[in-house]
């Protein structure tokens, strides 16, 4: 009886973690250690933020998980399989949007599907659905230069959603858009998570953003990038998204994290 429970719990935890990193080290060419001994597991369906000051290797970690960079040592498992490069179960959202300027919103959003060889009418249908879901209905035939920064990032998000990956890796997705757009975007992301059952990993340098959005926050310390602390904000996000910003738990946690990170900045 005890045995079976133990096995079951083990199986559950294994199922629970969609991504695991083991002993990740990354040393760049000039001898700069970007990451040192990173052991993490990311829970399925959660939004995890990688938070830290610049130089803490958070983007490096995200790109290693994406398979865009190779770790110097250690490994990453996604769905129990080691990562050897980019894969269809992970989709990336870029800081500078990385849209093709010569292609329309619809074609950009469908680009991941196009590369997978999905037939034109089907991929356009799916792209159209996600373009609408990120709030860009009616802009399908526009070109990126006709859109604002925030709208371009929505296209980047639609492109990542359209491939129906399990994990969305977002590299400071809101840092290149203005404050008002960012707030709206963050609120929309909370709504989006209610519809799309996906795992999100978000790199950010904004404490407010991390606390506002995340189920877990992984705090990294800089030079070399190491694990500092993991916090789990217990904030109810079901109501009015604006209320979260006045929630005492939200405000206290921001202060607490800032107190912890302050040392690295001073």
């Amino acid at each position, binding site marked *: 009886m005890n045995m079976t429970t133990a096995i079951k719990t083990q199986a559950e935890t294994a199922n629970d973690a969609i991504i695991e990193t083991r002993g990740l080290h990354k040393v760049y060419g000039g001898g700069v250690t970007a990451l040192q001994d990173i052991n993490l597991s990311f829970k399925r369906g959660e939004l995890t933020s990688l938070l830290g000051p610049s130089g803490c290797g958070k983007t490096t970690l995200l790109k290693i998980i994406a398979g865009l960079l190779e770790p110097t040592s250690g490994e990453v498992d996604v769905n129990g399989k080691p990562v050897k490069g980019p894969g269809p179960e992970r989709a990336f959202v870029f800081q500078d949007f990385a849209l093709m300027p010569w292609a329309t919103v619809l074609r950009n959003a469908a680009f*991941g599907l196009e*590369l997978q060889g999905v037939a034109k009418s089907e991929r356009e249908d799916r792209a159209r659905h996600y373009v609408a879901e990120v709030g860009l209905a009616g802009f399908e035939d526009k070109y990126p230069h006709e859109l604002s920064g925030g709208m371009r990032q929505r296209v980047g998000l639609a492109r990542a959603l359209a491939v129906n990956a399990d994990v969305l890796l977002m590299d400071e997705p809101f840092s290149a858009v203005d404050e008002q757009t960012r707030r709206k975007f963050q609120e929309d992301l909370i709504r989006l998570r209610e519809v799309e059952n996906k795992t999100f990993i978000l790199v950010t340098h904004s404490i407010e953003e991390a606390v506002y959005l995340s189920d877990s926050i992984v705090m990294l310390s800089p030079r070399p990038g190491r694990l500092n602390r993991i916090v789990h904000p217990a904030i109810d996000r079901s109501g009015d998204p604006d209320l979260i910003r006045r929630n005492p738990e939200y405000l206290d946690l921001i202060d607490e994290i800032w107190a912890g990170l302050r040392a690295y900045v001073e």
Partner: protein
Amino acid sequence: MEFYGFKVPKAAALLFWAALWEIVGQFELLLLFPPLSEVLLALPDVLTTASFAEAATLTVTAYLGGLALAVVIGIGLGMLMGLVKAADNLLNMWVNIFLSAPLSALVPVIMIIFGMGMPTVVVTVFMFAVWIIALDTRAGVLHVSPSLMEMSTSFGASRLERFKIILLSAMPEILAGVRLGVIRGVKGVVIGQLLVSIIGVGALFSLYSQNFLMAHFWALILILFAFALSLAEVIARLEHRIEYYAGARA
């Protein structure tokens, strides 16, 4: 353009110089400078002769042939230099030398290798146009946004698809190079034919100047200028459309 507070179209500058030309010409100071009206009258004369039709066909064929070669090889070379560091180290200096070297001096050598005919002119056009196309293509390839390349990798693009993205990203610079190549190619075709001087417009130029038909001579120059400028304008239009797409690249 404004002139003493009046709005004047840009073409007015052209009219001013045309008038000056006419006046200076009317003084008959120089045999070399017939008045513009005489040149314009000679235009239909030049255009309707059988030798012009023949020369024009020859020139256009040689020009387009040389230019097509320069575009294909120039873009290929520029791609290679932009993508392969070793090729860039090996070629960059030479391409820059050829770009700024007085290529007219090379035409006699080309003539020895390719003979006194069409191939020499084609090669001359090629030599005038290819280097700027190669260098601009290289610049375009080096400017391709790294995150766009990461994007295509992360969504599983094949080698060919990544290459297509590089080519399309570099398109504004490539077209700028082609436009400059088009203009330089006109220089090449004229200089090549002048030096060979027994074919195409080069033969016509020698014919007119040796017989002191200066009005015809200038008429032919006007035709050539108009040809070069309208070609460049066509490419510039195309370029403008591409720039428009590339606006979001920054």
